[in-house]
């Protein structure tokens, strides 16, 4: 990918001629007597061009349908994730699309694309990134403009990054739900270890630490025209299109890219037998070892293709399928995969099966025997011929659409396949002998050095798995929620100072006696919620019954809602009826009552709850002192007490649940007297530094007559 000016590069002409005749046989079955016309097919050949900025293009004009497609490839990948931010590249790729561009808000971008039935999507694989455009031919101009905008000017908006991180955390929380995913994660981690990106998987902490600056840096590092190839197909004319491309990418200069070193895997096999408990009636098993690192010159490729097809990649006719499923009924899904495309490090080879628990060992043995068989005994001629025929005859399916042809050509170049790879493919397959297959089986399959991962319930296994080696039992923990923020060490002086500040606050809010007389508080308020769709007006009434009951009634545009917490459990009343609230959400209500200042101040001053002073800070220009205290949930609460009025003018705390956390800040202003105690009439909430809601109290009532039914679930 040298930076040359629009130089036309001749690409090897590709002609696929398929000549398949009837197979002569002495004992012919009816289908064996059929003869077939030879197919002569010249698939279109992509034209290779280069833009003035160094971007490589593979173009095929195809006027069958009024469609237009670009499949782009960027040299980057998950392999460049930093060790402490695993998942960065994947999150980068999705926020590159969802975060909009410098001139297009995310909603506007979505609306623009979908209203013309077009799509721009960005993706990330281990050793490359992708970006695609699909549009109607009538919208090529607009489509190209948006495509270039996303590629050049992604904005990585903070809120979209935050959303994507939350989704990633949820994915981590759910990663043990599916046995295949569970087995796979552990298999690759065992194989590659903790020092290699192929063995890494995301953890909550790493995801949490990803910032907008990280995404921008990733973009700046890899997304330059000289590092991008585009396969372009559909209903267009090449020369005008090239001009359009030059135009939309104008001013985007190429740049030197220093690709980080990817750690090199130690290919020594580390065989192990691993077991993960999951109480299921079927065992998911992965059995394998390192596979192949792709080199530009790779003569074993064709014998390997044949061998892999015979072993387990050839679908219903492969040996694993035949033995394990068709002859023994021990699986529905069974097969093997050898990853041969990685260029930085060896990929993995593995066989897989899902088999009833009480046949686990039998299935493993059967799979290992099939692998051994390929090494020990030459493949019978008929099976070899069938497999080669299959590869040669189905080769044409690599050329079904121009998009597929152009993409394939681009991918082969990216991975360093020789330029005549496709042209010579069928000949090379035809040359493979039974000896070749056995030789690659012996070279690349190692049934004596297997990493075995099983997920299931060993109580029901047919035999213990130690016949395959010493068993390593892997404990799987549900990714835990973030631990509560620890209270800092406090000195005697800090504790004493806190007491002083607290006493002044109690006095300022009405004095201990008046505060202790408050048994309940009803707040009626008008609020404006800040939603992505714009401000949302709502009315609400909150009931605090000390020490621990809480109810909030909300009038929203879409109907009325209520959240009720009776001190131990809670429920929500929606337009569709009442539904229980899970304990972890109910716990946040407990904290909400705890934080209510008319209760909090006397509670803290009288009940021996440790409070410590943590220094001064200005809140909206007003000097305040910070007090720290632990809430019922264990999360720390920061109170900001005005040095002047001694009112609590701000609360700050972290809300966490199941691994995600947001900082909430509540600003309390306009304190007014209500029956001798002080209540803030203007409350503004920020979440993660962004305005979340603003409410103005219309009425505050102390010690109201409250009906017990308020906290009872309606019929």
């Amino acid at each position: 990918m040298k930076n040359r000016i629009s130089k036309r590069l001749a690409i090897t002409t590709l002609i696929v001629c398929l000549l398949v005749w009837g197979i002569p046989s002495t004992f012919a079955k009816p289908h064996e007597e059929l003869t077939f016309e030879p197919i002569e097919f010249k698939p279109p050949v992509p034209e290779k061009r280069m833009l003035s900025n160094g971007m490589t293009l593979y173009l095929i004009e195809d006027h069958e349908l009024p469609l237009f497609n670009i499949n782009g490839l960027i040299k980057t990948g998950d392999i460049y994730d930093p060790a402490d931010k695993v998942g960065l590249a994947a999150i980068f790729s999705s926020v590159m699309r969802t975060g909009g561009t410098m001139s297009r808000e995310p909603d506007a971008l979505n609306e623009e694309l979908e209203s013309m039935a077009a799509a721009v999507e960005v993706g990330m694989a281990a050793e490359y990134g992708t970006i695609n455009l699909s549009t109607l031919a009538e919208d090529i101009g607009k489509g190209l403009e948006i495509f270039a905008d996303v590629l050049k000017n992604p904005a990585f908006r903070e809120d979209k990054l935050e959303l994507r991180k939350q989704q990633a955390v949820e994915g981590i929380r759910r990663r043990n739900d599916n046995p295949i995913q569970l087995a796979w994660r552990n298999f690759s981690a065992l194989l590659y270890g903790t020092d290699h990106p192929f063995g890494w998987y995301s953890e909550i902490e790493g995801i949490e630490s990803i910032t907008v600056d990280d995404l921008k840096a990733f973009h700046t590092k890899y997304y330059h025209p000289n590092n991008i190839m585009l396969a372009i197909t559909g209903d267009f004319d090449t020369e005008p299109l090239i001009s359009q491309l030059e135009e939309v990418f104008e001013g985007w200069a190429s740049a030197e890219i220093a690709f980080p070193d990817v750690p090199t895997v130690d290919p020594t096999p580390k065989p192990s037998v691993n077991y993960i408990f999951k109480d299921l009636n079927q065992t998911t098993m992965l059995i394998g070892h390192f596979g192949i690192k792709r080199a530009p010159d790779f003569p074993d490729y064709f014998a390997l293709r044949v061998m892999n097809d015979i072993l387990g990649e050839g679908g219903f006719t492969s040996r694993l399928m035949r033995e394990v499923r068709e002859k023994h009924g021990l699986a529905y899904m069974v097969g093997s995969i050898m990853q041969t495309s990685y260029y930085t490090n060896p990929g993995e080879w593995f066989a897989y099966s899902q088999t009833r628990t009480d046949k686990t060992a039998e299935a493993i043995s059967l799979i290992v025997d099939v692998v051994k068989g390929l090494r020990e005994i030459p493949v019978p001629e008929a099976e070899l011929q069938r497999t080669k025929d299959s590869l040669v005859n189905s080769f044409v399916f690599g050329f079904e659409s121009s998009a597929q042809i152009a993409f394939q050509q681009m991918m082969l170049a990216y991975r360093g396949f020789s330029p005549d790879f496709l042209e010579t493919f069928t000949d090379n397959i035809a040359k493979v002998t039974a000896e070749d297959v056995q030789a690659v089986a012996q070279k690349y399959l190692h049934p004596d050095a297997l990493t075995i991962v099983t997920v299931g319930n060993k109580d029901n296994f047919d035999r213990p798995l130690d016949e395959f080696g010493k068993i390593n039992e892997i404990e799987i923990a549900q990714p835990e929620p973030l631990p509560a923020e620890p209270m800092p060490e406090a000195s005697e002086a800090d504790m004493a100072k806190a007491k002083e500040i607290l006493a002044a606050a109690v006095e300022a809010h009405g004095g201990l006696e008046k505060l202790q007389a408050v048994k309940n508080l009803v707040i009626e308020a008008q609020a404006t919620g800040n939603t992505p769709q714009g401000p949302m007006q709502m009315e609400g009434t909150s009931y605090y019954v000390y020490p621990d009951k809480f109810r909030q009634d909300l009038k929203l545009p879409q109907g009325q809602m209520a959240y009720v917490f009776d001190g131990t459990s809670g429920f929500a009343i929606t337009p569709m009826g009442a539904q229980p609230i899970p304990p972890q959400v109910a716990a946040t209500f407990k904290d909400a009552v705890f934080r209510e200042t008319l209760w909090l101040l006397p509670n803290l001053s009288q009940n021996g709850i440790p409070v410590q002073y943590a220094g001064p800070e200005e809140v909206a220009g007003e000097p305040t002192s910070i007090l720290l205290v632990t809430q019922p949930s264990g999360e720390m609460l920061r109170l900001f007490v005005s040095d002047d009025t001694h009112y609590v003018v701000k609360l700050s705390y972290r809300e966490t649940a199941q691994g995600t956390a947001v900082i909430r800040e509540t600003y309390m202003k306009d304190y007014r007297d209500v029956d001798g105690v002080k209540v803030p009439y203007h409350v503004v909430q920020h979440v993660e530094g962004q305005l979340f809601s603003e409410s103005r109290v219309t009425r505050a009532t102390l010690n109201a007559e409250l009906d017990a039914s308020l906290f009872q679930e309606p019929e």
Partner: protein
Amino acid sequence: MKQIRYLLILFLATLPGIASAQNLADRVVEHTFPNGLKLLMIKRDTSPTVAPYILFKAGSVDEADDTRGIAHMLEHMLFKGTQTIGTKNYEKEERILAEIDRIGDALDMERAKGSRADADKVAELEKALKEQQELAKEWIVTGEYTEIYTQHGSTGFNAGTSVDYTIYTVELPSNKLELWAMLESDRLKNAVLREFYVERDAVKEERRMRVDTQPGGKLYEQFIAAAFTAHPYGMPIIGWPSDIAMLNRRKAAEFFKVHYAPNNSVMVIVGNIAIDKTIALVEKYFGDIPSQPLPSEVTTVEPQQEGERRIEVEFDAEPQLMIGYHKPTIPHFDDYVLDMISAILSDGRTSRFYKNIVEEGIAVSVDSVNGYPGARYDNLFFISGTPRSPHTTVDVEAAIYAEFERLKTEPVAEKEFKRILKQIDAGFIRNLSSNAGMARQLAFYEGIAGDWRYILGWRENMYKITPEDVMSVAKTYFTKSNRTVGTLVKKEDTPSAGNEVEANEQ
């Protein structure tokens, strides 16, 4: 079936409309043979390949209580060969197969006694069965039928069973079309359902893989069983474990005989073909299969739902949510309106579910599909959601209902309609770019809607829908009493429950 509807919505719902619909209408060639077999063809010369598909209007809905799972089981069995393929000598093999059936039946009956089964007798029968299976191996050529296709360069050789139909799919180099006609007609005329009990074990593994070990699969099975109390749409396609355990060759052969008739099927061939030669080829191989009286339709009608139904499934997994509302099937006008509603709710990043639920962080995904689990009979508008913690299924459910309330009270903006209609028209063009995709779609609509032109009428109807239609349909169907709600709940502790593994398997 569900995939097809989904396809329709995602892809059809993804242009120059009239021109593209007209283009499709002009390109489909129809031919009906004297035996009732309907053949649809599209000639596409982009590559020398062809996708011939056959659909039988025979799905799990056509089963009886004692044959539940047989439509799917038969689909598996039709890959086992014929009287000439898959065998070295069918006459000799046939005698052993009869013996296997006899022992297998006795074994199934004994095992079905459960805890009262005679263990010695079971062991003895198992041994006898094993012996006969070993004898049969002398004559059986396992996998030969599949091998022939594979050797000739097939791709996508497979089949699928839905509640409504069973479809047999393959793509081949276009010079191999006659091979397809020969092999397919051979299995319709001379199928041998050999290796039955081994395949039945593989089907049990399929059930474990799709249902027992998959939180989503498990929840769906229980959800759909709750949503339908009378109509067979509530039954699992693959069958309950105890149903699968009692399936046999006789039941499969009977189902085959009743349902696999030329006048109960649709054949679609898309690709590099010559139309006249293709008609002649199909006539030559399939023309002599006699037509027969059609099996009766399901007459049970799901009674009107009289109140919300809620079910829970405990599983070692994080929560999931499924919601379904009963509604009429095609070609009721409301069904078109519900297709529109589904697009408004969940197609793309401009959709309401995405913007108001996913982007709000309440759920990681929320999807809607109109027309679960089938389309031959009245069905469900289906919604599934995956909450994002700390949000729960309660929050996701409330957020979904808020969107339904909006549909009932706020007219849909012109802009939303226009966007969806543009995507529908684009879908017509995009669909034409895949032989296999076109074959599947034409087979489905010809087989299930009774006429592939449904696709054209669908587009016209979508254009007719007004904001008032959306409000009125939303009010009619999205009611509390008309819905079933299923939630997957995390099992608090998962003790090592030892002995539930089937004692009654071979």
